[in-house]
């Protein structure tokens, strides 16, 4: 309950406000296409055929498991329908898990978004397609996918409390002891930012590239300062793309699991709580409340993804 309320008061509000403005041009834009020549209709049948493996894949491995997982939350251990599992949301531990997940995702997304945006802005000094841009682009694609136990071990080797290389340097050079910081929910921010920044670069770069040099020239001709340009033109044009990327980063962090499982095995975020309930050897009969927690996550993700889709549509207005 707490979880969904937090969402409604937060990110969802922003997306709802922007919704009407976005909807109209989208509908207007879609209509002429469907009224188009007969060729489109003829292409549609083979189109569906070509799409069907993907549709089947999504149904089998995303839609059906999601429905099964969520509905399992509304049955008790004996298979009788119940709403009793919803009581999990009243549990202090579960509330703290959701809070931990929100904080971790928000902080790591905010840091990644700001750092990533600065990187994107710096990269505009080089023309698109230059060697450096291509290299950074490729590196980002790889690093944004770097995660799981591999990343956890990389982090342990770098900033682990006992043997991390950076930990040792900080200790000897500055007398700063990181301690077991990496093994806390807050410490997870570091690995999450590690794959968050490259993801931001990937998603935000097209928006920055969409800023046309002519706009700056036009503004300057009319007497605008650099500051005016960013406040009146650059900022507003980039805002939807920035917020959209921020939401994507949040969602990505919110649903991450394996890095956390290796680093904070005592729990503290929702995905770990779900795993605990599903596989517990010591506390029996809680497997069904995992479905309720999954429902909580699905709701959060649904809200976030809707907001992302709406913002993305708005952002694309300026990217043609």
């Amino acid at each position: 309950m707490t979880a969904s309320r937090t969402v409604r008061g937060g990110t969802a509000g922003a997306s709802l406000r922007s919704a009407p403005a976005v909807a109209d041009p989208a509908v207007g834009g879609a209509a002429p296409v469907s009224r188009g020549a007969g060729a489109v209709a003829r292409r549609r049948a083979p189109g569906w055929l070509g799409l069907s493996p993907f549709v089947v894949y999504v149904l089998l491995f995303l839609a059906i498991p999601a429905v099964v997982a969520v509905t399992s939350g509304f049955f008790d251990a004996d298979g009788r329908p119940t709403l009793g599992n919803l009581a999990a949301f009243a549990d202090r531990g579960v509330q703290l898990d959701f809070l931990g997940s929100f904080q971790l995702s928000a902080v790591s997304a905010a840091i990644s978004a700001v750092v990533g945006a600065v990187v994107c802005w710096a990269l505009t000094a080089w023309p698109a397609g230059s060697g450096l841009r291509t290299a950074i682009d490729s590196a980002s694609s790889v690093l944004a996918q770097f995660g799981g136990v591999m990343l956890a071990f990389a982090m342990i080797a770098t900033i682990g409390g006992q043997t991390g290389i950076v930990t040792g340097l900080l200790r000897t050079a500055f007398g700063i002891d990181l301690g077991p910081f990496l093994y806390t929910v807050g410490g997870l921010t570091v690995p999450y930012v590690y794959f968050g920044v490259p993801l931001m670069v990937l998603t935000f770069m097209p928006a920055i590239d969409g800023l046309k040099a002519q706009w700056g020239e036009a503004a300057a001709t009319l007497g605008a300062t650099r500051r005016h340009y960013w406040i009146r033109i650059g900022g507003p044009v980039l805002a939807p793309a920035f917020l959209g990327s921020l939401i994507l980063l949040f969602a990505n962090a919110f649903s991450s699991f394996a890095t956390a499982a290796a680093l904070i095995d005592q729990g503290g975020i929702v995905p770990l709580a779900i795993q605990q309930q599903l596989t517990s050897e010591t506390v029996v009969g809680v497997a069904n409340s995992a479905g309720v927690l999954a429902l909580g996550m699905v709701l959060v993700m649904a809200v976030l993804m809707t907001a992302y889709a709406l913002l993305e549509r708005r952002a694309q207005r300026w990217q043609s």
Partner: protein
Amino acid sequence: MHSTTRPRRRTAVAATALALAGLVGAALTGCAGSSSASAGGLSKPKAQAATSAAAFGGMKGLVAAAEKEGKLNVITLPPSWANYGKIIDGFKKKYPKIKVVSQNPNGSSADEVAAAKSQKGRDTAPDVFDIGTAVLQQNLDLVAPYKVANWQQVPDDFKDADGKWIYDYTGLMSIGYDSSKVTTAPTSVKDLLGSAYKGKVAIKGDPTKANEAASAVYLAAIGNGGSPDDVQPGVDYFAKLKKAGNFVSVLPSQATVNSGETPVVLQWSYNNLAWGPAAGSAGNPNWKVVVPSGTALGSYYNQAINAGAPHPAAARLWEEYIYTPEVQNLYLAAGAYPAMLKAMQSKSTVDTAVLKSVGEAPADFVQLSADQATKAGTLLSAKWAAAVR
């Protein structure tokens, strides 16, 4: 147990693999169903109901029936855990006509039950379980009664009178430590509260999830004035350990032990032994194992046969194999005390060199009963998170 950071993509890949395995499995079931109908003269339902080798006309008949099935599915048996690598290899060598499929080696007892339920009726369902007591007691309807030839050599309180389950081995909760990082050997859990252990102590997972981690809490309870009926002192101990900055949440593994990131790990003796010099070049040569003085804490695992085993004769042959001195000595060599140990000592079938290196089983030994474990689990689920976060 371990998924990845990008669950959507990786899970999908894993799910594809699973689905393909399922399709193949379904196809195999079709074949197996027709061929095993008369395995060793017994129909599959009759073999699934066999409560001793006599039903197959003795051991020879059982072996013939199992070889005719040609396959055995075991589940959650990590090769480095209690010598299961060697035990499975020994079975393959002894019965080369039977293919052993080891599923989900790093899974939990709960995963075994989940697999038995979800794969029910398929050729891929697990045939036998090596399962924790708490989970087993909740799922007694999933197992079939069977008594091995050496049934009498296992003490009465180590087995179900009907033969639904039988203890196989127990470890002792122990402290493993890296002697190059921790110079004074700890002798009790209380020692670990000292400042020399700052940021060093880890346990094998979340006690509200893993029995091994929960057992570390129970050991701490016993070492701090608690008992199997009262594990609260164990939770208090870990709260203190956390407050002192000594307890870390990272999941210890061979890798973190080798690098020195987790120089102290509370876990079953056989797992601590497996990470030390016994692992050869893969292990940490400085890894030492201490069973704290005073009352020792153990936890027998249970052998049980899946009632719907797709290879009922092979499942029963596996049980006969487990309760031979040969395999019981393999458990012992890994630091896991086997259920037949006492009988083997009196019959002189125990490997004395191995027993000497592992040490006699402690006289003062407790394990939590099913009821105590349930009660302790309830307490952990209410108190643990607040104590260590």
